[in-house]
């Protein structure tokens, strides 16, 4: 009982208790007070809430059974309402809306366990039948593959000889008439396949048959299968084009006709490039080095040219030192720095290391002029050319010179340009050495294909030329900005042969920003257009037909600007203007376009798979399209305009930034595609239902374009480039000698021109700033370099080389950059293309492009974008979510 003394002490509480005890039993009174204290003190409710809460519970207990433990309630809330904002108290209104929406969702959608079981049964049944179907299909597929393999292996009697040669060298061709008859017959057949109009059903059967054959060829290796694939692709694509020309132009609607004709021209261009590409790469030569005679007296004299204009000495130094260490008789190797910058420190350096230093009074005709001027002072029988950032391997001349000695008509041996730093695409997309880079296709495949037709391109660096041939054509061609390709063309016209050896024998820096990269491509494009105008490879004498075709394909490649833009905008014609640019029923479009595209993609993936992944070509092309459009067009009309610009290399991007200037055209394209899709959706809903099919196809195309454009936009986000000198991955043994005289075996994991990363076999005791002797071998010589530890991690040590003497620098270059095996494995790191995987990668990149766009948006737009994203996220938070699935094993 309450004493009056106590009442006096806590007047309020005790009065309350007194009142309560009049109404409730003692137990309940205690409970209410306990709850009140709990709510007030622990849950920090205000006094009135805390007072009312227990009564609310008591009242509601009249209707609801509150026997569940409180924690279980909380758990079931967090399971069934996973998206309620926590703490719940802070978001009362929004949470209540979420709660209501989710409850509605749960009552209608939540499945009982019983229902799920029946569903599972049904789905099991479904999957079983699908599996069975799939198995039958596989069986059929296997049989088909075996059959084809048998057919193809029959025709290939000599396994060593390539399939191409077994066809090309067959005895049949010796008879002129047989040859013409066979060719005429094949052409006749092709014409029939291409031109005969089919009904839709017939076309569907025809194309599905071709796809079936192509599919079953997928697993058959060998060139014969590739040739069959190519034949199929040529047939389907030509047939498609024929159909486009004859049946799909809308002559009644001038707008549609104009736009459709534009698309058709772009498609014709694409078809031409495709056919020429097939021709170019049908049988890559894969030339092997020819050993040199044992007697070195028979080896010719070689001048090494290192032309430079504005590159810093630190870039030219390694190249010069490596050029000096090329394995060649010392009296027959002369290295020259051709300095158009006329810098005294270069002259000093040249004098110090004992190489020639050549300048000229003017700077006419840029690089070509520079080398022509140097040819007046040097007298070697051969000229090796390295751009000043291409560090040659010691084996460069040993690999290449054999070609000249074997055939006196050979005037050029080109080796691939290999870049040890990531190019802007690789760096900004962060896929260095994961996805073959842009120039891999050219040096890995196309040049080898060109070599087959004796149409190897001279790429301006990493090549050896015969002086006699150069003298014959009057030195390096200087009329165009791509002096290299033009020079080779002239030599080929003069009857000389060219060779390509696909063994990287030098490596250099890639361009370091997207704008520089695009600048370089613009120069190439302009140069090609200039050659096309000034010295058209189709005309003039001296070239064989295959050579002409290879050159034309190369030039066409750089005219890709307009067609690419056309493809990127084509679907919008229908969406915006209702212009039927492909004037055909939906089904016809579907049956003609999609299978043909699949067939072409599959063939290209098969041919180029190791060097270019599917869909990436479109990304690369889209980035360049807008920029090479103008210079090529200008050069086509006025070839003498424009000057040589030097590609800048070896720079740094201090800050991560977004190149808005560069990406402007893509942003516009992206915007109109996006608008087009939105507009298309509106038309789908409100427009004419008969157009749904065509609209969907157009929107699908626009969506694809958006993905490609997104990836192109992603490239424009310039990543930060911190290191001054690029680290090159390596894996070769070396040793270190610690300050205490102990030695350790290590492996070199990477190196740059002033540092080395090594890995010890066991945990080491090196500390930062320790002095360590690095021991590296070259041949049977051991070189020792004083280094300092700059960082350590478990088994890894980072070493910096400081203040090396020139002699030591040279030794270091010899032990690292100019190792014969330094660049050998660059093409082997990539697995063959898988189109679906590749498309996923492009998609991922594209998404990154979009998020980059938001992240890097200009400052005035930032608040709006932030607001919008928040808004979207906020709205998203109201959408009912699936309950969290928990595993209750009991």
């Amino acid at each position, binding site marked *: 009982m309450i004493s009056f003394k106590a009442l006096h002490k806590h007047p309020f509480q005790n009065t309350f208790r007194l009142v309560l005890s009049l109404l409730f039993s003692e137990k309940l009174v205690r409970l209410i007070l306990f709850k009140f204290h709990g709510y007030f003190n622990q849950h920090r409710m205000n006094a009135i809430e805390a007072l009312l809460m227990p009564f609310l519970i008591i009242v509601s207990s009249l209707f609801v059974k509150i026997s569940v433990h409180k924690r279980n309630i909380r758990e079931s809330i967090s399971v069934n309402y996973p998206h309620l904002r926590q703490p719940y108290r802070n978001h009362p209104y929004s949470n209540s809306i979420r709660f209501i929406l989710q409850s509605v969702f749960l009552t209608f959608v939540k499945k009982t366990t019983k229902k799920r079981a029946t569903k599972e049964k049904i789905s099991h049944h479904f999957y079983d039948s699908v599996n069975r179907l799939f198995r039958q299909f596989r069986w059929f597929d296997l049989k088909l593959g075996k059959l084809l393999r048998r057919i193809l292996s029959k025709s290939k009697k000599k396994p060593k000889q390539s399939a191409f040669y077994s066809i090309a060298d067959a005895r049949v061709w010796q008879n002129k008439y047989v040859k013409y008859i066979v060719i005429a017959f094949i052409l006749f057949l092709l014409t029939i396949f291409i031109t005969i109009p089919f009904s839709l059903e017939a076309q569907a059967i025809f194309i599905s048959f071709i796809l079936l054959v192509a599919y079953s060829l997928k697993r058959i290796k060998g060139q014969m299968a590739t040739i069959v694939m190519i034949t199929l692709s040529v047939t389907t694509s030509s047939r498609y084009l024929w159909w486009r020309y004859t049946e799909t132009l809308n002559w009644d609607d001038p707008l549609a006709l104009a736009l459709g004709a534009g698309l058709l021209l772009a498609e014709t261009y694409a078809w031409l490039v495709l056919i020429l590409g097939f021709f170019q790469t049908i049988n890559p030569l894969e030339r092997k080095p020819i050993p040199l005679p044992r007697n070195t007296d028979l080896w010719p004299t070689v001048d090494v040219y290192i032309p430079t204009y504005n590159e810093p000495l630190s870039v030219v130094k390694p190249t010069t030192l490596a050029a000096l260490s090329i394995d060649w008789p010392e009296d027959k190797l002369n290295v020259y720095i051709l300095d158009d910058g006329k810098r005294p420190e270069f002259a000093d350096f040249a004098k110090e290391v004992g190489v020639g230093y050549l300048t000229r009074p003017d700077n006419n005709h840029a690089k070509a002029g520079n080398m022509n001027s140097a040819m007046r002072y040097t007298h070697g029988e051969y000229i090796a050319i390295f751009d000043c950032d291409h560090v040659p391997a010691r084996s460069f001349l040993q690999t290449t010179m054999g070609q000249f000695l074997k055939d006196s008509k050979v005037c050029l041996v080109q080796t691939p340009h290999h870049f040890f730093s990531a190019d802007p695409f690789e760096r900004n997309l962060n896929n260095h050495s994961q996805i073959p880079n842009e120039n891999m296709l050219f040096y890995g495949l196309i040049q080898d294909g060109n070599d087959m037709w004796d149409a190897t391109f001279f790429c301006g660096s990493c090549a050896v030329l015969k002086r006699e041939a150069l003298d014959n054509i009057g030195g390096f061609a200087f009329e165009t900005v791509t002096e290299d390709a033009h020079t080779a063309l002239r030599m080929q016209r003069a009857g000389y042969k060219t060779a390509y050896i696909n063994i990287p024998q030098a490596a250099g820096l890639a361009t370091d920003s997207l704008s520089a990269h695009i600048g370089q491509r613009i120069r190439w494009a302009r140069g090609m257009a200039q050659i096309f105008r000034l010295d058209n490879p189709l005309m003039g004498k001296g070239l064989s037909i295959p050579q002409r075709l290879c050159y034309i394909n190369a030039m066409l490649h750089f005219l890709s600007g307009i067609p690419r833009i056309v493809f990127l905008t084509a679907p919008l014609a229908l969406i915006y203007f209702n212009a039927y640019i492909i004037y055909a029923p939906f089904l016809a479009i579907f049956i003609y376009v999609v299978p043909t595209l699949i067939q072409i993609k599959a063939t290209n993936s098969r041919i180029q798979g190791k060097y270019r992944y599917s869909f990436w070509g479109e990304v690369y092309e889209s980035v360049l399209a807008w920029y090479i459009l103008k210079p090529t067009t200008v050069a086509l009309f006025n070839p003498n305009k424009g000057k040589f610009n030097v590609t800048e290399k070896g720079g740094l991007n201090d800050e991560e930034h977004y190149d808005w200037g560069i990406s402007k055209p893509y942003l516009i394209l992206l915007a109109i595609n996006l608008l087009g899709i939105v507009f298309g959706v509106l038309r789908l809903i409100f427009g004419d239902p008969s157009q749904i099919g065509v609209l969907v196809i157009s929107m699908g195309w626009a969506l694809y374009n958006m993905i490609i454009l997104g990836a192109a936009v992603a490239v424009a986000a310039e990543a930060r480039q911190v290191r001054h000198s690029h680290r090159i991955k390596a894996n070769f043994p070396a*040793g270190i*000698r610690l300050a*205490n*005289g*102990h*030695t*350790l*075996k290590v492996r070199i994991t990477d190196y740059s021109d002033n540092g080395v990363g090594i890995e*010890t*076999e*066991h945990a080491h005791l090196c500390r930062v700033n320790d002095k360590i*002797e690095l*021991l590296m071998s070259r041949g*049977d*010589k*051991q*070189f*020792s370099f*004083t280094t300092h530890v700059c960082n350590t991690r478990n088994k890894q040590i980072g070493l910096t080389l400081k203040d090396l003497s020139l002699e030591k620098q040279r030794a270091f270059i010899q032990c690292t950059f100019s190792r014969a095996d330094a660049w050998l494995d660059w093409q082997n790191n990539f697995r063959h293309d898988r189109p679906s995987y590749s498309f996923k990668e492009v998609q991922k990149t594209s998404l990154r492009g979009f998020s980059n766009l938001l992240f890097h948006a200009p400052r005035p737009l930032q608040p709006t974008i932030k607001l919008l994203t928040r808004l979207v996220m906020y709205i998203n938070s109201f959408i009912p979510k699936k309950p969290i699935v928990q595993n209750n094993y009991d």
Partner: protein
Amino acid sequence: MQRIFLKGIKGGTGCTAIVANLACVLKKSGVHVIAVDLDPKSDLGLHFGLPWKNTQGWSDAENFNDILTCFYQDSDGIIFLPHGEKTPSNTALNELIDNCNKLDNVQNAWVLFDCPSHIDISNYTLHKDDIVIELVNCDAVCHSLIYRRLQKLKKTENSWHHFFLVNRYNSSSELEFDLFSLWQSTLPLMAPFFINSDEVIKESTAYRNVALNCAPYSIANDDFETLAGWLVSKTAL
């Protein structure tokens, strides 16, 4: 039986340590090795963990049967014969070398002789298949001595295989680097590799062991493996 004579071109080139380590490498790669100390200093045993108090060796023995009791085996299974205290005559020396042929109870055993630098190699009776390795250090004295030796070798008829091997090479020393480059490009009979200077070779004797066991991750370890592999390839010829 393959006999290999290792000898410093002058005193203190590190010959004994090489013998001990080479024996160890060969043993580890499955070759039966017998190391015989011909040097009156009698220090080969120390490398194999023989206590310094143990001075008995073949020179103290009266006849070959007594010598047979002087052999030791170390923990790696290398059989070795210490020299002992007395200074034997030239005939006794050659008698021992000849008698070692009788030890060939296992097929293809290798016998490594640690020869003193002061006894000229022509004092031993050598066969056609024997390999003589003279150890040099990269310094000016050895430079002169090598040329002297080469002249002498040119004058005399020698049927054995003779090589020079650089020991304690330190490529960070300019003189050593230059001398070695010179020797490699001009001298015949140079072994195409070298033994790197390594502190662990000194330290391992302090542990009464060979470098191979003390520092398996050192380059010296690799060097001895190279030496052994090279010798095997030479004997196969």
